[in-house]
């Protein structure tokens, strides 16, 4: 094949219909407060990980979760130190700490082709 000097860009658009949204359903089932997030960002503001490492934004990870973009979550979620401050500040009573635990658990299951 000739060397073209460039490659076809990957589409950045979230293709909602093609994405795998099993993880979001899993978390909704085991931690129903997840549905109540209004993306206010109080969790991100107080998050020690988000303040001190790059690309870790728990508010954004929740959104990506709902859209089925799990690869980015997987690359970031292990940075969480489980201090639990995010949960203290949430105005809607979302159990963010539990959501993060379920994210890790659920993605692990998907990666290992387990039933989720």
């Amino acid at each position, binding site marked *: 094949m000739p060397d073209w000097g460039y490659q076809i860009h990957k589409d*950045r*658009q*979230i*293709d*909602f*219909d093609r994405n795998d949204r099993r993880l979001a359903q899993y978390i*909704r089932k085991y931690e*129903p407060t997840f*549905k*109540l997030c*209004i*993306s206010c960002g109080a969790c991100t503001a107080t998050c020690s990980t988000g303040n001190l490492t790059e690309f870790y934004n728990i*508010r*954004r990870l929740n*959104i*990506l979760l*709902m*859209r089925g*973009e799990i690869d980015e979550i997987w690359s970031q979620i292990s940075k969480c130190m489980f201090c639990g401050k995010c949960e203290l500040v949430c105005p*809607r009573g979302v159990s963010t700490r539990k959501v993060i635990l379920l994210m890790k658990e659920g993605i692990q299951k998907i990666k290992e082709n387990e039933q989720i």
Partner: protein
Amino acid sequence: MKKKVVVIGAGVAGIEAAAHLALMGYDVTILEKGERIGGHVLQWDRLFPTQRPASEIQDYLNQQIRNPNIRLIAQTCLIKNERNNEQFNLELSDGNVLTADAILVSTGFDLFDARIKEEYGYGIYDNVITSCDLEALFSSEKPITNAQGEPPSRVGFIHCVGSRDEKVGNTYCSQVCCVTAVKQAIEVREKLPRSEVFCFYMDMRMFGLRFEELYKESQEKWGVNFIRGRLSEASENLDGSILIKVEDTLAGRPLKMRVGLLVLMVGFVPSKGTLTIGKLLGLDFTPDGFLKPADEYIDGNSSNIPGIYLSGTCKAPKTIPDTLTDGRAAALAISEYLASTS
């Protein structure tokens, strides 16, 4: 002799004001261009935030108008106004002439014509409807289906259609569409429990009593999804479903999604009647084309002309409770004016 007030428009504001003026003993005539009273309430099935049947408001209005001091002239418009000192001589489309000591303009709003947003495809794609069409579907008690006759597996609600949009010349917020979307989203989930419902919003404006609670209920109990982003364009797929393109602004990524039915939350525009009557009477307009009160803070019912008063959604978008309150306030303002004149 009883002083005479002519109310133009038999919607929520006009009837409520007429009822209170009649109670105060004035001789009230209501002009209505249509056949029935009630205005837009007639087109609605249930109301936010408690799903109260709109027919109850209709019944209330029918009750309110039953006063011997009120005369309703339906299917009639005002075509000419001549001022004679403190009295108005009003010529009607049926050829009759009325005299009035005060006029109340309560000519209301029209729903935004969604076809103006060409890129949303209303009137072109079969599965794009407006909030008003959906309300008619609720009233009809027919099952909710798409144009292909099947229950849609996913329904999208687009907020701010014709509102907060300089492209269509409307800079203002229509106030009621956010909460109406939440209300209708719940109703869709109620009627189609297997469907997914998504609301696309720019800001959730849950300003009224119990609105925020309804929003939370829609998430908690009904699983309604909210995506912050304005629809850029809608297209039709091969199977007739609608492909929508938004930015998920909280993810910072563009997003596309297929929906079986797309509901456009159409906003308020000044009604044709408001524009005609406003011009005919020489009233001041706001830059948005609504009628301008003399003082928006402390005298919201007076117009720029002594003896002519304003009430309801001819001034700005309003909820039903606010419109009722404004009707009563207008009645009070008119009675104070009439007491001060000979």
